[in-house]
């Protein structure tokens, strides 16, 4: 499990940021994006994917815990 921050990108998409590795990548897709169920599998532009437990849609930016899937 790693601490990450999800925030809104300038182009309207989402940005994934991992402070520990200083890694800032665009999020390509998010499994759930509804207001009451948000989260699930995150696909990153770098090819990696992470999982965050689904939750009610938070106000961004938000610090979260994520698990690496690959």
């Amino acid at each position, binding site marked *: 499990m790693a601490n990450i921050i999800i*925030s809104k990108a300038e182009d309207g998409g989402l940005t994934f940021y991992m402070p520990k590795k200083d*890694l800032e990548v665009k999020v390509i897709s998010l499994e759930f994006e509804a207001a009451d169920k948000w989260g699930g599998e995150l696909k990153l532009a770098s090819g990696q994917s992470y999982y965050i437990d689904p939750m009610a849609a938070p106000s961004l930016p938000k610090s979260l815990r994520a698990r690496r899937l690959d």
Partner: protein
Amino acid sequence: MANLSKEETQALIQEVLEVYPEKAKEDRAKHLSINDQAADTKCVTSNRKSLPGVMTIRGCAYAGSKGVVWGPIKDMIHISHGPVGCGQYSRAGRRNYYVGTTGVNSFGTMNFTSDFQEKDIVFGGDKKLSKLLSEVETLFPLHRGVSVQSECPIGLIGDDIEAVSKASSQEMGKPVIPVRCEGFRGVSQSLGHHIANDAIRDHVFEREGAAETVEPGPYDVAILGDYNIGGDAWSSRILLEEMGLRVVSQWSGDGTIAEMEHTPKVKLNLLHCYRSMNYISRHMEEKYGIPWVEYNFFGPTKVAESLRKIASYFDDSIKEGAERVIAKYQTMMDEVIAKYKPRLEGKKVMLYVGGLRPRHVIGAYEDLGMEVVGTGYEFGHNDDYERTTKDMGNATLIYDDVTGFEFEEFVKRVKPDLIGSGVKEKYIFQKMGVPFRQMHSWDYSGPYHGYDGFAIFAKDMDMTLNNPCWKNMTPPWKASAEEEQQAVA
């Protein structure tokens, strides 16, 4: 001047890599690449440990924390905790200008160190630190706080600087901030920035006993990541104030701890050096809901672009203010460009700096009709390179953590008319007969930010490039050979 095609540039990289042993070649190949605006996925590898045995130009975590982020905060005393050298060699070299009386209420150019001796390494230096802190309080009663910047031995011997700081802080009633920025942490100064940002987050924001400072206003902004090198922050600040914003804090050039404490109350954080202060910006965005915007104050094109971008976060009065400021300086800028562009047009520049400049100054050179043919970061990360791609032309060189050898070879082949890098590179290239500007400290000139800064920037570039001394650069041994040949003839 050779204009290299994409294939030629690729061949050049291969040729330079040839001299390395197999393993090193493989590693270095990932750090060198050709800019391609179309492909946005593949980037150079960055933020990795430098190879043993090559000349790297990087600094350490202590340099990132004490030298960059904490050092310029003028009303605090920054103790270089450990042996004397780190503090002394980093003293006042960065030209972070400030107003104040040094030694009375400002301490920017002074060096405070605990001067570790063998016995401190053996028996621990906590007692020495606590004695030092009380001495500081006696000798400099007007200081507003102390930061303890750890040097390598502190982490190695495991001193508890947090406990000493806490006790001393209670004793003197001022903040004493322990910063765990031992030089061995991380691969470059970049981690030092991060550690320093975290220390500000943990020890400065919402500090107990912090004074209520200014009444928050609707147009409050903070300048983050401007270190006031040669007065940079001042020439940026006047533009923002002219357009109607109120700059309540400067981080950290000419900054104070009170300004930092006030920052969580601003409406917008203006981020100049993304690399060294994005951490605290992200924190403030999440915790206090303050948006942040990156801006670029090098060269009139980028200044105008940035002023409009900043204004878009505010109401119409600020937007009008931005247009007014742009219009006001337009004539002055046209004059500067009319004067210097004919002298500089078409010249090629290679850059190798840190932080933000490898991409930010490109616009300023382009305003003067110059072209940047190679750029690289000492300690940039992936996100820096992503931001660089669109500012750079196609088929130009990108080099991460370039080694002394690679840089020299690139210069020999690309033959730029001007190089912008640091003091360690300066004399090598000047001896090779290539005009050089220090782009870390503006070569003892500055400011370069904002409209006023651009006029100085243009003058400096012209002064360096068109200096008559470059015509007299034949080294003595070659000169004598020529003379001999003439004598024989």
